[in-house]
């Protein structure tokens, strides 16, 4: 693993930036332009992803954009930390929302979080619906698999 433990723990998404922050922000966004500008901004908050980790085993297969995912399980605190990268800005922003919801939680806590419901409430469900080949759904599936393996 090339990313250090600190790289994972320094990720503000899900720790400093909380789900309440995001859902509150969404309430004040009037039109699609503001909503997507906010999503794009969130994407800019994704921490740098180590170049060495852009390898096949960390690649999440989606049709259009490239998505990478790595994780670190902290035995002491029992929390799972995630880093995600994508070459598409909106996918990065949506990945940031997923991290806000799932990063730095215990695997059990993570597994009880309903991402579909969250995206539905933000009116973003279409982006993770099975009809969109952008890799986000596969990414959520992969995160849940990792959590299930750590929880076992």
């Amino acid at each position, binding site marked *: 693993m090339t990313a250090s433990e600190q790289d994972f723990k320094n990720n503000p998404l899900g720790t400093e930036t909380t789900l309440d922050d995001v859902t509150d922000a969404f309430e004040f966004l009037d039109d*699609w*332009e503001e909503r*997507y*500008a906010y999503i*794009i901004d969130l994407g800019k908050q994704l921490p740098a992803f180590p170049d060495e980790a852009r390898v096949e085993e960390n690649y999440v297969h989606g*049709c*259009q*954009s*490239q998505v990478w995912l790595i994780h670190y399980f902290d035995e002491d605190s029992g929390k799972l930390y995630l880093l995600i990268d994508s*070459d*598409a*800005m*909106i*996918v990065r922003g949506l990945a940031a929302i997923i991290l806000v919801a799932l990063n730095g939680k215990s695997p059990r806590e993570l597994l009880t979080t309903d991402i579909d419901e969250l995206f539905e409430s933000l009116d973003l469900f279409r*982006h993770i619906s099975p009809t969109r*080949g*952008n890799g986000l759904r596969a990414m959520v599936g992969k995160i849940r698999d990792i959590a299930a393996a750590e929880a076992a």
Partner: protein
Amino acid sequence: MTDLSVANAANKPAFDVDAVRRDFPILSQQVNGKPLVYLDNGASAQKPEAVLDAMDRYYREMHSNVHRGAHTLGDRATAAFEGARETVRSFLNAESTREIIWTRGTTEAINLVANGLAARLKPGDEILVSQMEHHANIVPWQMIAERTGAKVVPIQITPDGELDLESFTSLLNKRTRIFAITHVSNVLGTVNPVAALVEQAKSLGILTLVDGAQAVPHYQPDVQALGCDFYVFSSHKMFGPTGIGVLYGKAQLLEEMPPYQGGGEMIERVSFERTTWNTLPYKFEAGTPAIAEAVGLGAAIDYLNRLDRQAMEAAEANLLERANQLVETVPGMEIIGTAKQKVPVMSFKIAGLHPSDIGTLLDQQGIAIRTGHHCAMPLMDFYGVPGTARASFAFYNTLDEVEQLFTALQKVQRLFA
């Protein structure tokens, strides 16, 4: 029949895009609160009322299985089904309906031909394709190459997206058995000079297949003038239903090819000692065919025949010209594919933006385009891009829609600034 069509041609009205749009009910809807601007015709085109009506009427009034005789509905269904085959024959100017095989689409047609020709291939033989092919005109050949020891060789293209004719000529050799080329590139819009290419290949005894999937929405090909051995296309890209396509093949070659699938319809007589094949075209049509879809495709061709082709092509050229003029209004936008002969297809990239971001934010504005690799990964590799955004126009698109696309692209760019 001939006299009648001449009379109709004289009475054809000038091309009226507003009238034409009223023939396509799906176009008059809102998407994400905005009027739909459908610019993904290269992926699949919309259907005129005439096609919807023909299929509806077929199921309401004449549906039965075909070629089974014995009752009136069967006769009606068979007449409609075979009538559609004749419509396709006439559309392509093929010699005989024996040369018109129904398939599920372009992809199945190419697989059928590849399998049918496999027995002719020996190790070291070459199948010539091009760098701009859709995967459907690469992978079936790779599969039979693997089986037979032949190899698939790509013709190079120029940075403009034209076929490199020197590369083509230099690659033709004694081992070349098959030449399979797209008529029109799905990504670049390039119209290849297929008649000249086919002539050159044929002079060396090479079998030729032309993938017409992206050509038939814009042109009416004449297979006898092109001289190719096979011409294939899908219905759904030329305003007909999904699930059906056409393989045109020269009768003699089709006679020599083995059947593709076994089952009902394609046999003459079956016994456990010996089974014999039905005559053309039925030899290649195992199982109950897509009858309503064939009728729908026939209706689509009839619909196109009622339009003024010249006026339609001129209108399409205007769309592309307007789009090209507006490129400079979006800083960093670059067209991929600038061949001299193009259908109205515009692949592009915008510096700093991922195609999927462009697609998502255009969709928010009611504009449908395609983003991604367009099933042409070797072509993406050539241009060094993961994918492109592609706006593909049809004759029912308007100049106003072209302008809306560019206004929307400017908005996308502002959001990322």
